[in-house]
């Protein structure tokens, strides 16, 4: 007699896994709506900034609207990116490779967020000090 039931084969996989799939999908949906609203604004801001000399770029992003739109788009965008790469990682990788890929995807995403946040904060705060 086998004491192991078919439940053993299902546990830890799919919906019987860590059960974060629904939240993951919902997070992607919520960030999608935010990014859909932000996309035209971000493109117009970047369109105004590209081509300016350095002093012009610093002055432009020291204003509230360009700084906030850019910060929101890049932070929410990279968060959405990390959640999206997770989908791809889950599709193509398994075991330790999957874990390593998830970890580095998260680290990379937050590094980009930190870099963008630092640059924008410095432009905004320098303008206040001056």
């Amino acid at each position, binding site marked *: 007699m086998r004491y192991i039931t078919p439940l053993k084969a299902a546990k830890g996989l799919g919906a019987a896994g860590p059960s974060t799939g629904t939240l993951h999908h919902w997070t992607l949906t919520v960030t999608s709506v935010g990014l859909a609203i932000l996309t035209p604004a971000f493109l117009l801001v970047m369109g105004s900034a590209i081509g300016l000399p*350095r002093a012009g770029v610093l002055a432009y992003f020291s204003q509230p609207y360009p700084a906030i739109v850019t910060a929101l788009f890049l932070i929410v965008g990279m968060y959405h990116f990390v959640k999206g790469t997770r989908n791809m990682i889950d599709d193509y990788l398994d075991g330790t490779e999957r874990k390593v890929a998830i970890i580095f995807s998260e680290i990379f995403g937050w590094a980009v967020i930190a870099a963008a946040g630092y640059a924008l904060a410095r432009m905004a705060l320098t303008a206040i000090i001056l």
Partner: protein
Amino acid sequence: MGDIPRGNRPLSPHLQVYRLPISAVTSILNRATGHAMLAGVLLLVWWLVAAVTSERAFLTADWVLRSWFGFIVLVGSLWSLWFHFLAGIRHFFYDAGHMLEIDQGQKTSWAIIWGSVILTVISLLLFFFG
């Protein structure tokens, strides 16, 4: 189920064994564009960080951003962003249970392809002549 031959069968038939109808192409492109956009984001974040670093750093980043290489990366990312934007909006309809018929999927696929091209051209016209 002992009479089913189980040896040498592909575990999970994937891209290489399916024909690719247009809805499959746009589904794959949605993931591809989502990842490809990272090139443009990295270029812009580097440019922003360079702007608060030094004049020399900014001139280097600005030169790359406005070179033919930067143009290809930014226009590629721009198209990717609009494609991902439209394909993401289609996912809102999918999630709500709409547009799931085969003919609807084909129509929306072509709408996403042409829509992303049109939005990219409009964005570029606004940038260069707006």
